[in-house]
């Protein structure tokens, strides 16, 4: 993007809404912004209709801040809570049909490459656990097997939140929810393993209570997807309504779930490591003599 579209035509400044003026004057477009600066700049996503205490919303805000080139990023989603927030963001969002986000992103990213060549146009899919692991499963897996160059982010609240609390494939076994009146009868789907089997170049799990880590994985995932291949981030973003988590306990729940089943994991393919090191100066991925293959940075 030329950054022109977020600027005003001369003389129109005073007629523009305050929100818009703030975005132009204090927004993140064309600047290097970090989550540690939150509160000091106008965020791409601020106002939204999500429930009080929604961890998913915090995660989406963090993710959007982490986009390396927000002015050249297009998000793609599907039905679910997440899109209610994402569609309010000041960057383009494609809301297609049920579970078609990875199909749309395949055509979109290929089309943008045809038009813009090497100029980065980042396509990021952000969809829920139902959209990704259930109704969109086939297109998600096939986009990974095809090594489509875009990022897939799952907002995993382990339930169909938007439709009122039904079991999803990512629900834990035994959980009693609508459409699972006797408790879910099979295990939470292992989408992380499937992502690796399908050939994703980068796979990570995160919870929203560590903003710097969210920022770190999103950045890596988006950068790797530019050239190396598909990347997948699975984020625990609790539904405090359907799981009856008190608003002031949402972060505590995230911590507990992190310790229980959402430990931070990160898989980076060798090609992706080399790419991040050479292209973007990621020192931790610089080749070391006789380094172990599965180098996991930071603490688990």
């Amino acid at each position: 993007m030329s950054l022109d579209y977020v600027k005003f035509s001369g003389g129109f400044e005073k007629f523009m809404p305050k929100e818009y003026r703030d975005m132009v004057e204090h927004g993140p477009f064309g600047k290097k912004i970090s989550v540690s600066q939150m509160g000091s700049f106008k965020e791409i996503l601020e106002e939204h209709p999500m429930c009080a205490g929604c961890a998913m919303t915090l995660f989406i805000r963090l993710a959007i801040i982490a986009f390396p080139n927000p002015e050249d990023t297009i998000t793609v989603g599907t039905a679910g809570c997440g899109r209610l927030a994402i569609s309010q963001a000041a960057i383009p969002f494609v809301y297609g049909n049920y579970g078609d986000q990875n199909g749309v992103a395949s055509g979109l990213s290929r089309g943008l490459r045809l038009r813009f060549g090497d100029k980065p146009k980042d396509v990021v899919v952000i969809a829920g656990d139902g959209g990704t692991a259930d109704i969109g499963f086939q297109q998600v897996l096939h986009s990974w097997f095809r090594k489509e160059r875009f990022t897939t982010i799952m907002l995993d609240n382990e339930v169909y939140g938007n439709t009122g609390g039904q079991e999803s494939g990512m629900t834990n076994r035994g959980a009693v929810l609508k459409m699972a009146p006797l408790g879910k009868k099979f295990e939470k789907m292992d989408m992380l393993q499937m992502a690796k089997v399908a050939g994703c170049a980068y796979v990570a799990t995160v919870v929203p209570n560590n903003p710097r880590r969210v920022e770190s994985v999103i950045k890596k995932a988006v950068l790797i997807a530019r050239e190396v291949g598909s990347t997948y981030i699975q984020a625990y973003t609790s539904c405090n309504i359907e799981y009856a988590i008190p608003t002031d306990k949402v972060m505590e729940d995230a911590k507990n779930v992190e310790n229980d089943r959402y430990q931070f994991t990160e898989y980076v393919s060798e090609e992706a490591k080399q790419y991040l090191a050479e292209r973007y100066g990621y020192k931790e991925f610089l080749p070391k003599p006789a380094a172990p293959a599965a180098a996991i940075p930071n603490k688990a």
Partner: protein
Amino acid sequence: MSETVKAPETTGQPADSAVAAAKPAVRKDPHAEAKRQRVVTPEYLFLEAPRTKEFITGSEAAKEAIRRSNVDLAIAYPITPQSETMQLVGVLYGEGYVKEYYRGEEEVGVMAAIAGGSRAGVRCYTATAGPGTLRGLEGIASWPGHRLPVVAMFTCRVVNAPLAIQPDNIEVAYLLNCGMIVFHAENQQDMYDFTLAGFTISEKNDVTLPVGVCCDGFFVTHARGYVRMQDRSMKLPPREAWRGAVPVLDAENPPARLSRDAPVQKSNFMAYNIHAVWQQEVWAAVERSRKYINQYMGGLLTAENVEGAEAVIIASGSAAAQSREAVRICAEKGIKIGLIKIRSLRPFPTQELRALCGNAKLIVVPEFNYVGWLAKEVATAIYGFSKAKIIGGPRVYGGQSMPVELIVDEVESGLTGKKSTNVAQSSVMGGAVNQDDVAHFMRSI
């Protein structure tokens, strides 16, 4: 073949950089011919460019249309009787006529990816048939609302149980209500012309809609016919992404449509109003395409010997081909009968039919499906403008062919007042019909 095997020894560089090196001891560039294609205006291509005739199948006709259509992205998924078309488009990709191509996972994924490609601002093409059309219909039906220019081909086949691959165009009944432009090709020539014109019409600013080019499977796709084509050194101008009625999502324009229309998901009067307005926009755009169909395709219908004829056959697709032969037989029998072939089903040639059918006594509408979607369209269009008796038949389905004698029988019995043995009384409409005859059937349906 030996030439191409020798090639890689040049410098060990990727193929595209080797081209720039322009060594005299050349290996053959598979894209050489495609690169020499030159852009011409649609007006020249459709109306002026000289044509030569070839005897080819419908699938090959579609391929030749795509060769000249400057397509950026084509996505394939096999289904009989369409498979040959999209694999031939794959050949074009290998030759550089199509810039990007892949085999999708199935039709839901294909229609989604086509939507993504069109949103990116590139020219997109796909094709499917029967069950594939219905599988992809959620996506297809959303293209018009998102104002996505696309051309899709539907090589119609059976969709009902039991599963069959045979021709039957019932899927058109579903496509008619999506808000897309729908053409129905009679033969290989139509396949070629409608596909090429489809891209141009689809991308007109005041249209910005998908175009569906339907044909009856096998009869058109697998049979050969003469097709008059412009030279393959010419192609349409590329899609101009900025030209659409809504901005493409390339992060070069302010985000638009759903990305800023979140209230559309809410249950309030604003949401209802937004959705209603979108639908009005879509169908208004369908109306606006009429002038381009007239300009580039020579009209929404063709009429032969209709003036002064006591009976008229109205048909589309393969039924029009069969009807043309029925007209010839009727002429031999001394029955003066005309033929109207509908090319564009959406928009539908309502005004044209009213003008043409005002004095007809009998209208016969033969179809290759059980439900008779065309007869309903015709009856609705001319209601109040014609006193003709309308026979909604004969109809064949499930892969049956249509003997021309069936059509001739309906013309003869329709003119003499004799009851038909092939068309249910409930499918006979019009002011001249004895309602008592029909009443029994109307009660039982």
